[in-house]
């Protein structure tokens, strides 16, 4: 209640407008899906009625619709009863064929139990799967948020230390190596450059792992690890599909942009610490990577970090949406039965479009809820800093 009255206050009008837009979006989508689900239901009822009519023909004794002779006899009988209505009689025959085919392929007929779209049982089943999906999503999002900042800070500090990549170092070493009288490069240069190339290779492999789509990683370890476990899914959600590396890169971009701003120069002339060497007297202790929020006091990096973090909050929205994409891919591509998005694929496969629509709406709600939470968080941060 107090949160609601807070939102209604005048200074929160910007947030209120955004929440209204989110709310309107949810209502509109709910209406669209409701119309769609209703339409699917109407079509299903119509189809059942029509199936009943056709079933009458299929129930006729002594006619095998797979037998060409029986089919011809049946067609001639139709022509006698409905003389001159060739088109109608063709349609009846096509409808009979379709129904027969569906009786082979449709799960409704195959399993023997009549699945009739969105039943209460289905809703209960979907709810459990949805809760599990949200739990995995929430955990992965939080871990990525924390991990991405640390990776970005580490990369930024390494950049400030002017360390070239291993590959660049290796190439530079070879490029600058002086050949001896025999025209050969010294053994130590060869050894060093091979070592650097190896390090570059390992780093490259790790990077490739972070860019690998989830299904590539999962299939590569499928016979060794239980890929349908929740823990593996969380791990895959974090490291695969490039989500972590892209999120870290976004934060890194903000750090670089902030480090070029004028207030950093002002901090330098105010004699705040400006060295980026690990554990140097005026540098940055390595352990601060564990405590990045409070670890950079008296250092010019502190305002850089806080300003980057401030801008990172709204940017989280697009990363959260991409993370949902990643999780959907994991659930779908790995055929993990009993998972929310795999269920979506199954429902599409069996043309249960109303259930598929409900699942898509739930996914839409998940993204919307994240956007709303981030908007409120951003608004609170802005108010804290007098915006």
């Amino acid at each position, binding site marked *: 209640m107090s949160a609601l009255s807070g939102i209604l206050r005048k200074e929160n009008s910007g947030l209120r407008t955004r929440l209204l837009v989110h709310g309107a979006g949810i209502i509109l989508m709910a209406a669209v899906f409701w119309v769609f689900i209703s339409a699917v239901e109407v079509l299903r009822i119509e189809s059942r009625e029509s199936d009943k009519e056709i079933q009458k023909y299929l129930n006729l004794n002594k006619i095998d619709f797979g037998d060409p002779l029986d089919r011809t006899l049946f067609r001639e009988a139709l022509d006698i009863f409905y003389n001159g209505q060739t088109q109608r009689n063709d349609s009846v025959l096509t409808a009979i064929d379709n129904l027969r085919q569906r009786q082979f392929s449709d799960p409704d007929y195959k399993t023997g139990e009549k699945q009739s779209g969105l039943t209460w049982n289905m809703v209960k089943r979907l709810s459990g799967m949805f809760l599990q999906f949200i739990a995995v999503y929430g955990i992965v999002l939080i871990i990525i948020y924390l991990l991405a900042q640390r990776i970005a800070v580490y990369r930024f500090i390494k950049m400030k230390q002017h360390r070239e990549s291993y590959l660049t170092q290796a190439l530079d070493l070879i490029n600058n190596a002086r050949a001896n009288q025999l025209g050969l490069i010294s053994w130590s240069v060869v050894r060093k450059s091979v070592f650097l190339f190896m390090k570059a290779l390992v780093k490259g492999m790790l990077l*490739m792992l972070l*860019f690998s789509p989830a299904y*590539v990683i999962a*299939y590569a370890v499928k016979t060794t690890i239980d890929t349908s476990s929740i823990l593996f899914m969380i791990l895959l959600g974090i490291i695969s599909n490039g989500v972590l590396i892209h999120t870290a890169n976004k934060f890194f*971009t903000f750090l670089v942009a902030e480090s070029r701003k004028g207030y950093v120069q002002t901090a330098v002339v105010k004699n705040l610490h400006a060295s980026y060497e690990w554990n140097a007297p005026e540098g940055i202790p390595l352990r601060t990577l564990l405590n990045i929020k409070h670890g950079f006091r008296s250092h010019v990096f502190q305002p850089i970090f806080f300003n980057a973090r401030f801008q990172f909050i709204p940017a989280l929205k697009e990363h959260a949406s*991409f993370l949902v994409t990643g999780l959907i891919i994991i659930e779908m591509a790995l055929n993990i039965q009993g998972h929310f998005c795999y269920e979506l694929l199954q429902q599409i496969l069996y043309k249960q479009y109303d259930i598929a629509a409900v699942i898509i709406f739930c996914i839409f709600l998940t993204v919307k809820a994240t956007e709303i939470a981030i908007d409120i968080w951003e608004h609170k941060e802005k108010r804290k800093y007098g915006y």
Partner: protein
Amino acid sequence: MATKTFTGNSWLSILASKKDLPWLTIWIAGLGVLWIWDALFLNAPAFARLQIAFLNSLFTGVMVVLFSLVLGWFVGVSLHMLEHSKSKVGFAVISFVTDILRSIPQIITVLIGYVVLTILLHNGIIRSSFVQMLWIAGIIAIAVFLEVADTIRQRIDYFRTLDFVDAMLCCGIKERRIINVEILWKNSRSHMLHKLIAIFGISIFLQCSIDFIISVGLSTDVSLINFPMTLGNLLANVDSKQDILALSNLFTEPGYLPVIFVRHLQGLSVAFCIVFSLLCIYMIANGFVRRHKLA
């Protein structure tokens, strides 16, 4: 500590100074090495499939980039114009629609597009692979074009905060020209190109993912063989999946490593092609940002 960069005017120093070019070179070289290896060790039909899959994915990716550029430019500029017009209705409607589109995960948009595509295929409305690829590119573009539209709006908004637009307006220069020529063409080409490189990467990722997903099946009437051969499609192929599964052997039997590069080449080549391309495109985009100081 190594703090020195390439010295002199060697080709290395030229490459290093461009920042994005080394990764473009690595990408092309890596794919080249893979091509030679496959030409030597991969069986001819699989090699032909791999080449077609790569070219099809490349073509679709390029088309996604083109469609996104056109859509993004149109929506971005329209939103800006409508925001500053007398009536705000058009602006409210388009922003509302884009806001909803933004909240639908990209893969869901693409999936819905594929469901429609399977219906069109089933009904025989679409037949040619070329049209299918254009359709796929179109639906992926719908999922990603907002990134271009956002970049365009950010660029225009940035110049609006300066005296740039007002100063030109006061001199009688038309607003249309200020936005399209002075801001977007003359001042935002690097930003857009960077965004398009990133979109190319996303489109490869989405294409492969959706093709892999539909190997599970979107329709009982339409299967993988109805779709054009792409990297994702080829990866979802049973043979490729078996090849990737073989990687698990390395955990228990490291000596199996050399065998993998010869015996399980189809799956491995496709997976390498996808992952390596995603990595290189990311690096090219990052290098581009550094070279043009976009961050």
